[in-house]
């Protein structure tokens, strides 16, 4: 073969570069519609024991609450003109508010979980066909009293899973200053919504994108979906912008305590093993759920905090004094004791702040009170009161300061990590 022609042929062969392989699309598979049920008919099938669907049947409905905000996980609420139901998904994701969908029932199970009727084991890829998008349902306006009405059996409650709006509601006073959920530990928390006559729980996931927001202090309208757990009715927020509590409260917040010139607290008004609620004091948990409680030491009530038997990865409890007007020469004295000391834990610290707003510890600047004698191991014995001494407060405040301030006592621990020292304080005197 001639060298040049060989070269030419081979060049052509090689330049016909490898083509990308194209695959055939699989034939379109459809889910038969079969018998069509309304949501009410679907709910009506349930008589107390789980029903697993096998044949061809479908329900048409609209998604009213999805997982987008993180408040719901593997739970999606659907509704048609006859009723509503919650779907529990095998895998998260894929359904959005306003989707008009057909649920092919084969493979799913209708069951009741803690009195809430649910369509379980829904696989979005296999059970859902989307018909249209952006056709949202409007919420139905109800009262808390209507929602709290008891139905027997519970699964006949027509409010279950409904998208509702309640007007004239507010979060109860004792919860103000807290956040919707525990975003630090990503734990779900119940809050209480009230119309000043009736109360209902609002359950918020620690994964929700609003978990770290403070509860609004006003009164107004609330939109959510209705859940139930045992005998408790629960509301779930689907979008935080639908919680519009900005009006005047029906249960007004009392005027804040005016700054005082001295504090002397012996906790005698407390009750053993009950969370402390002292006038003008602020007792709050900023991680986990533990707050300061009454503790009886030989019949004398003092304040105690502990993470013992707490399942939260972290517990932080604050006890904050009434607001004080600072005058030069003021000092703090108190006594402290501990029990069940855990090495490595720093359970207790005291602070002062000049900008605490009365509810939010996170936005205040805290200066640690140093130089005081606080009970600790091995310096002191357990179950033994240790006097702090007179601690002048001037050094922890700006030079020449004459404004108001608070003193805070903070407990830090962790049940799962074994940081469970019990820490007690008593006879707090600031003057």
């Amino acid at each position, binding site marked *: 073969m001639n*060298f040049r022609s*060989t*070269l030419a042929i*081979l*060049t052509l*062969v*090689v*330049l016909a*570069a*490898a083509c*990308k*392989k194209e*695959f*055939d*699309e*699989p*034939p*379109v*598979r459809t*889910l038969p519609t079969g018998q069509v049920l309304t949501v009410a008919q679907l709910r009506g099938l349930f008589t107390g024991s789980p029903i697993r669907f096998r044949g061809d049947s479908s329900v048409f409905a609209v998604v009213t609450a999805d*997982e*987008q*905000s*993180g408040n719901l996980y593997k739970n999606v609420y659907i509704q048609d003109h006859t009723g509503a139901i919650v779907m529990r998904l*095998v*895998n*998260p*994701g*894929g359904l*959005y508010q306003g*989707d008009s969908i057909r649920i092919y029932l084969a493979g799913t199970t209708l069951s009741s979980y803690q009195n809430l009727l649910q369509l379980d084991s829904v696989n*979005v*890829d*296999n059970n*859902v*066909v*989307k*018909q*249209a*998008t*952006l056709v949202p349902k409007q919420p139905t306006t109800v009262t808390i009293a209507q929602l709290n009405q008891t139905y027997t059996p519970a699964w006949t409650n027509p409010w279950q899973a409904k998208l509702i709006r309640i007007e004239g509601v507010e979060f109860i006073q004792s919860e103000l200053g807290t956040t919707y959920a525990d975003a630090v530990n990503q734990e779900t928390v119940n809050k209480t919504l009230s119309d000043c006559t009736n109360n209902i729980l609002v359950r918020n996931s620690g994964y929700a*994108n*609003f978990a770290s927001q403070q509860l609004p202090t006003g009164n107004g309208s609330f939109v959510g979906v209705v859940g139930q757990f045992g005998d408790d009715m629960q509301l779930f927020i689907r979008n*935080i912008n639908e919680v519009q509590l900005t009006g005047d409260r029906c249960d007004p917040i009392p005027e804040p305590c005016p700054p005082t010139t001295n504090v002397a607290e012996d906790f005698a008004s407390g009750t053993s093993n009950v969370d402390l609620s002292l006038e003008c004091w602020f007792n709050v948990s900023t991680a986990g759920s533990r707050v300061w409680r009454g503790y009886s030491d030989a019949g004398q009530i003092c304040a105690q905090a502990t993470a013992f038997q707490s399942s939260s990865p972290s517990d932080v409890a604050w006890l904050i004094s009434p607001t004080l007007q600072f005058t030069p020469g003021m000092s703090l004295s108190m006594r402290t004791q501990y029990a069940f000391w855990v090495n490595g834990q720093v359970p207790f610290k005291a602070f002062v702040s000049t900008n605490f707003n009365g509810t939010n510890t996170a936005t205040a600047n805290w200066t640690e009170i140093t130089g005081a004698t606080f009970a600790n191991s091995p310096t002191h014995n357990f179950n033994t009161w240790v006097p702090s001494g007179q601690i002048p407060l001037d050094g922890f405040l700006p030079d020449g300061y004459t404004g108001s301030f608070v003193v805070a006592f903070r407990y830090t621990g962790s049940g799962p*990590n074994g940081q469970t020292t019990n820490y007690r304080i008593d006879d707090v005197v600031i003057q």
Partner: protein
Amino acid sequence: MPGPGVLEGVFTAGTYFTMPHRALPPVPRQLTELRRPLFLSALLVSTLLPAQIDTTLATKPDTTRQEQPQLPVFTITADDLDAELGAQDISGILQSSRDIYTSTAGFSFGSARYRIRGYDSRNTQVSINGVFVNDMESGWATWSQWAGLNDVTRYMEVRTGVSPSRYNFGGLGGYTDINVRASSLRKGIRVSYASANRAYRNRLMFTASTGMRKDGWAFSFSGSRRWAEEGYVEGTSFDAWAYFLSAEKKINDKHSLSFTAFGAPIVQGRQGVAIQEAYDLAGTNYYNPNWGYQNGEKRNARMSFDHKPVLMLSHRYKPDANTNWNTTLYYTFGRDGLTGMQWFDAQDPRPDYYRYLPSYYMPSLSVNGQNDPMMAARLTSEWQNDVNRRQINWDQLYFANGKNLYTVQNANGIAGNNVTGNRSKYILEEQRADPTRIGINSVYDKALANNVHVTYGASFHRQKTHYFKVIDDLLGGDFWVDVDQFAERDFNDSLTAQNDLDQINKVVREGDMFGYDFDIHTRLYNAFGQYEKKWSHLEVYGGAEVTYTSFWRDSRLRNGRFPEQSFGTSEMHNFFTYGLKGGAVGKLTGRHFISANVVWMTRPPIPRTAFISPRTRGEVIDGLTTEKIWSGDLNYIVRSPRLKGRATVYYTRMSDGLWSRSFYHDEYRTLVNYTMTGVDQVHQGVELGLEAKLSATWSATAVLGTGDFRYASRPEATITRDNNPEVFDAGRTVYWENYKVGGMPQTAASLGVRYNSPKFWFAGVNANYFDDMYLDPNPDRRTAEAIGNYVESDPQVALLTDQTKLDPGVTVDLFLGKSWMIKRQYRVAVNATISNLLNNTDLRVGGFEQSRYDRTDANRFPPKYSYLFGRNYFAMVTFSF
């Protein structure tokens, strides 16, 4: 490994060397104590640093969210990509020079991923026609660029270790220069066909070269195709072409010009690695999770599409017999792509995702899984019997995509522009890294009087690598929306989720670019010089180089998570580095030589590891600095008619290196970036190679390489995510000192015999032994944060921190060949190699500890392993004239 008696005379065995203790909090204590004898030359003992004992470690509170376990999915660092390439690259290190140790390391140890002195490809400078061709951004030699051109690339000069070089300064691991000038290729035509059952099954190759013709022209052409519908591993495929053209014109006695162009379009369906549970369920250690059936046809999700042609124009100037001056201008461009699965608001489509394995439901295996024996039994049965459970179920992905109606509101940033259609939940994306590079290289060398030879050279190179993603296949859906799923949920702000803030809610379809779009620019200026002098019994050389390197990032997208740092040109990072080397060879007699080489050099950080997360931002690791290296070796060489061999001891210390890995985390639904600075490595060991001519026809070889390659510092780690500006942790101390460098056997040995018949045939057999193979340690498992909550005696501590060592193994290779001359003009040759003759399918030769781990259950994310191929062959018939 008992060696021939000769070896014992050279090396004093029994210098014991104890692995020091690694201590971890809360109190110093011994975690592991490994004792292994290391054969060390008495000559080098003094240079071996006594290994430090790692005893102090302050406990630090864990303030990050790292307790979430970690799982890698996409390995996207240079190291990982090239590790994948290396394993599947055909020509790579099979090219060896005449040194028996080097050639055995290439031919017999390559399949077990042996690397000479433990060095990765970055440490060897590869040049073609004198031009340095290692990728500027990763530092690696990309052998795939000229794969399939074996007929023309066989003329290469290879030196391992620090050595004199007349092409460049050379790397720590030596240099390879491939000469492809048309005049230097052997005249003739050569056609070959090979059959194999490895990555490919067929190879056809044609090469024709004219040699230097009377009219002063020389031409050469080569082309090949290598292909396999399915390779050794199920679901893999291979389709590669290669072409080469070279023309050279001798202008006069002093000048000649040559032009060379070559390239290799390669399409490859890749093999993936899995955990042992998946191998056991699938019933084979070659289970490949990357493929599945679509319409009854096997389809692989990890396809690579690679084609980077090179063009070169060389000028050769030879003013006199003692002088050479070669200058080459070159240009290379092309594509480098790898497809992979991507999904949005849907379940993980990969079949071996840990939640789809029975162990996830077996509490005895996984304390944090779910206790559901029924589910475990069902999954076990499905894995064993249903290929759609074990492999990707493509039909199901089409089914899900085809009915997911969705309306994108204000699509492409246009208010009121609503796009409705089936939004794909699952797609195939192609991640691209397309390089464009241009450069010039000029080297001058001259033999002076008094046996002195000098070499000088200078070069300039610039490279731009364009990184982006393209939609490869929407798998039955109509579009994909360019947003980040996790960010959408985590921030109550729809802009945060946008990958392109200048075109929000971007609707992308097949062939559209999405995700990220940026260039990494690199510039390199280099000059070097070398001096060689010979006496009758001594030769010495010395060399030096200086290099100035710059790199920066330039992004065309403004990312919603990093609006300030993602767009535009980043800061420019400049490094001045240098190297000094020297060595000597002494002739004891005409048959015995002693040589020594030493190098001190610095080198710039590799751009690919310097950026924390180049996909999303221009930030680099804090404290970027040059790497410092010193290395020395001492060799004894014998060359007698019956015995040829070499014995070497070497020591290398690399300091202030960088390390980075990115891995997919299913709970964050994003890539987590783990970067470390201050990574030191020590590589030391012994190399022995002997080739004995037993008779006129029989010869025998013995080769042993045993090393100790380990990390020698406590690097500091920075941990970030691709979708959140929050830094998980910075300055986290990694207690890595004295962990072994993984990824290759640290000990390999081979014994072989060969028969050469005077009747033009030969046959031989090699037995190979591999040992001291480790998995590279996952750094985060060796931190105070990982084990902080455990008491000293907790067995979890050992599970978390002990290094995974692979079992040693033996393989046997057989090779034979015969050739005939026909009419004194045509030559026909037949060669065959059978590797792993004993079909050892249980030999693990690689893998990695998963980056994701569960500190309370170290077994939950077990290592992934890869196995040496079982019995395989390569047989070739060549016709040449």
